[in-house]
């Protein structure tokens, strides 16, 4: 440390150090402002996005519930009117996992 200080302890060296310190302080101010601003804005944006996501999720849920209630109202008669028949005798084939099953007539 002392050797380094002795090396720069000349008129030219002192001026350079002075200019470097001034520049450093200005740079620090700029970086400080930039860092704080970007961090604050980023966090604020994230929070805003979360709020928006929550609201959109709520709206999606309302649509989903509407959809569920509609499919729960489908009846066998409606299915038959669209040409779909209930299969009376099913044959099952187990595939891959114990809980999955394929079936057909």
């Amino acid at each position: 440390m002392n050797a380094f200080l002795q090396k720069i302890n000349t008129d030219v060296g002192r001026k350079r150090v002075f200019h470097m310190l001034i520049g450093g302080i200005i740079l620090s101010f700029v970086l400080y402002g930039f860092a704080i601003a970007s961090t604050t804005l980023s966090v604020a944006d994230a929070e805003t996005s979360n709020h928006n996501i929550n609201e959109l999720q709520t709206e999606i849920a309302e649509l989903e519930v509407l959809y569920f209630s509609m499919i729960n109202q489908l009846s066998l008669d409606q299915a038959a009117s669209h040409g779909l028949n209930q299969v009376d005798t099913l044959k099952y084939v187990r595939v891959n996992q114990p809980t999955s099953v394929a079936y057909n007539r």
Partner: protein
Amino acid sequence: MKGEDKKFILRMRVVFAAVIFVGFVLIANLFYIQISNGSRFRAQADGQYVVATYNSFERGSIFFEERDGSRITAAGQKSGYKLSVNPEEFTGDREELFNTVNDITPLDRDRFFDALDRKDRTYVEVLNHISKEDGETIKEQVGSALQLHAEKWRVYPLSGAAAQVLGFIGYQGDEYAGRYGLERQYEDTLKREDVDLYTNFFARTFHNVQNFVDPEKVPEGDVITTIDPQIQLFFEQQLESIQTDWRSESTGGVIINPHTGDIYAMGAFPRFDNNNFSDASISTFKNPLVENVYEMGSIMKPVIVSLAIDSDSINPDTLEYYDTGSVDVGIATIKNFDGRGRGWVDTQEILNQSLNTGMVYIASHIPKPTFRDYFDRFGMTTPTGIDLPNEARSLATNLSSNRDIEFANMSFGQGIAVSPITMVRALSALANGGMTSTPHVVKKIEYTNGFSKTFDYTESGRQAISKETSEEISRMLVNVFDAYRDGQVKLPDYSIAAKTGTAQISNPAGGYYSDRNLHSFFGYFPAYDPQFLVFLYTVYPKGIKYASQTLIDPFKETTKYLVNYYNIPPDR
């Protein structure tokens, strides 16, 4: 070292110290500005559109989760506006103003004109929960005659489904918080501290740090439940049809995984709409499946038979009983539901025909301490620990009695009152190999700090009966279900273990009502490795006597739905 060098080093240190000091000053200044002036800046920003509303309501979400893992918001938030008027200064055309707003969004005429008549007031709200789009239109067309205020509010998209499970939030005194259901149970997790991020970055940061380091602090988060929205909605359709078809006093049901205690659906009627409950009866806010107790009737019989088998009090292969239709216990006479005798019957027939006399005979073989011990093991005398508030305690004082009549009554489900969820826990032990499980509706909490907590209740169980006894009683209950309506009810490809129950309802004035019954039903499938246990009950259905008439069909519909929904392979 020269004196000049020392001086230079000193100067350098002073400069460094000054830089650090200035840095601290800047940080402190920014902190001060953001905290002290944040609300003013926010007001300026919001004021571009509407009157600013401070302390905007924030709260975590509650999610239901579908089979494929996709989540549906069951309790979330919306933002928009509320509309107010200043009657003291209002001078415009009332009728025209009303029509203008009413064309955009429905407005209560009486409320609106009453508000305008209150000339001594400067602020009266006339409409809440206005969507953003409608709010913008109102502002364009009405101008300053009415005031819009930013507003956030709690929304329950399922509009009353799982109402008692979700609960709602409301005021109690000055406190606005969860009042029933999950909203209350997870209040500390769902509530949000009043820290506004836009203008108070440091406060938010320190607030999060506090959440991390303070062990007493419950972190903020969202709640993810085990409830499947599709199953819930379908199941509530079935419950509602029971309630309306039989004009019951109340109806409820649960679908649970008997192994894990995951509750897929839980509902009760009459219910209320969590979004608008101002006109609902307070009695509907309670979750009767958790907070009420009932004498469950004959669905208790399989529990008694299983404990008799497990304790070697009876041998189901050799037990035979001559049924005359009634039996005297002390000074009381206990009869079958129809008063008829069946002659010689075995254990299976006692269950098939739900013979009270036969159950009294079986109970007479069980030593009373054994009876009490097994009821403890089944969890009949202790709360289940379900993650919903106000769990009721069983009324089981008759277990302490030494009179035979009390145990005779309990053998067919009278004389002991338990909550439906307590009954479901005991019945789950019959289904899952003998272990009691902890019924629960929440599987995970996702915290806002990025961490999450997954609940695992698999280690919380207790062995009530042996695996062999569980299989034995399941086999018997499959025969019971297969025999209903001469075999017309059973599903040919699926083994279903089930039992109906019809209980008398106690009269607060003493004794039992002669014309009021509680119908109950449970069934689980696939019987020997069950993934679902469906429990149903309905209180005081009119014009019908037995649960086999009221609850079997809704159970069968629910079973078929679950089989299709989960693609459950046939097991026979």
